[in-house]
């Protein structure tokens, strides 16, 4: 029986990689949005 409290190896890997993907995704997209905003500010002031 698996202990519900302790994470198995695959569960640990899944948790870490999911967090990494979410953090990287947020950074990438906020960077994209920011550069568009800067571009629009340069164009229209």
């Amino acid at each position, binding site marked *: 029986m*698996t202990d*519900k409290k302790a*994470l198995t190896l*695959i*569960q640990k*890997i*899944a*948790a870490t*990689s*999911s*967090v990494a*993907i*979410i953090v990287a*995704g947020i950074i*990438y*997209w906020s960077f994209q949005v920011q550069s568009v905003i800067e571009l629009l500010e340069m164009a229209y002031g």
Partner: protein
Amino acid sequence: MELLPFFEWAETSFLGYIGKTYGGVYATFGQSIHLMSLAVLGGTVLVTDLRLLGVIMKDVPSEVVADQAHKWFRIALAFILATGIFMAAAVAQRMYYNDFFWAKMSALLVGIIFVFAIKRPLLKGNHADIQPWLLKLVAVASILIWFSVAATGRWIGFS
């Protein structure tokens, strides 16, 4: 490693020649089938992940949903890769200098590894043995990565 020669070669290859010369073949067999496969691939991702998040089909076991969706995910992925390679070959040199192309390729690689090396092995067993927060975390990451692949892909054409 220098990749530019590979992209130059791809454009002169048979595949690249066909896509470059016959706009109709590029648009129908390349772009249109790519989009149809996107519908299926995105659908399987959303069905699984929204189920894991408890948004849809709460009365259907999530193991069944995940297994069945993965079957079609693999088929859609095969079609989307084949048509994607065909399209990229035709405009390979332009792709080499396109930031969104590389963003998409990176996200795609992460997505494929995530699905086959992590998500599938994790979801194979009984989902009741997995902490609910972990299932939700994996679902959010999965939606985000495949959304990123699709969105950066669409932006290749705009830039």
